[in-house]
């Protein structure tokens, strides 16, 4: 039996699409039978990555964001890609509370939340070419994030 599934969705980089992005991923991974908490974790992680692409990648200008998601049994893989300005120092960007835009009330917690709510996170970025965020999560595994 082949129980893998895959979807790709592409949309314009506007803030309104942040909710669309997390809803579509949440709907897609429903076959893994996640708990409400797991759905919420995934939605938050997707929202963070897409928001980063819109605000930082494209500086709120026109662009395209694509999401590829793959489900294999209860393994979830999500890839969020933009062709924006890229991140010069990924390590620095991933530090908790680090933000290039403190005046705009950005918390600097985006990557921290992705890391906390998913099992694994990888960020590939090239200045001038764009950023790819890759995230993995196994559904049905009890995991204590913090405390």
């Amino acid at each position: 039996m082949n129980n893998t599934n895959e979807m790709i969705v592409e949309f314009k980089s506007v803030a309104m699409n942040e909710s669309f992005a997390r809803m579509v991923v949440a709907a897609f991974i429903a076959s893994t039978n996640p708990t409400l908490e797991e759905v919420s974790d995934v939605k938050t992680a997707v929202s963070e990555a897409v928001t980063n692409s819109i605000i930082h990648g494209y500086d709120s200008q026109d662009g395209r964001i694509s999401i590829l998601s793959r489900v294999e049994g209860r393994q979830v893989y999500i890839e969020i890609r933009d062709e924006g300005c890229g991140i010069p120092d990924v390590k620095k960007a991933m530090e908790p509370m680090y933000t290039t835009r403190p005046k705009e009330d950005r918390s600097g917690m985006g990557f921290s939340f992705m890391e906390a709510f998913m099992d694994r996170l990888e960020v590939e970025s090239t200045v001038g070419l764009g950023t790819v965020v890759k995230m993995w999560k196994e559904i049905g595994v009890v995991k204590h994030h913090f405390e």
Partner: protein
Amino acid sequence: MDYQYKNGVFIYYLPKELDHYYADKLKRKSEATFASEQINYLIFDFSNTRFMDSSGIGLITGRFRRIHDKGGQTFVVNVTPAIDKLLKLSGIYTIIKKKDTKEDIIKEMVKGGYYE
């Protein structure tokens, strides 16, 4: 109603989904009142909120900073477990207080010398 100001108390009734889009919208709408009034107590009411990401943390800390310098206090109320998890993780409870009900906030305000 998205927000309300009365007698030194500013309450945000947060949207169903508190992300970058809705946080910015709320900030734009409330900016004139927020900037012009003396705010002694700032309350974020999560009654209707079912989703939040780090943009919500940015909204709260940004507002907190602006009133804290002038001696204001910040509270969150009616927080669901999912949102509580994010608030905890962000470390925000070191600067703001969580209360179960509005009555609990009023009690704390009265202790601090507030009267209607």
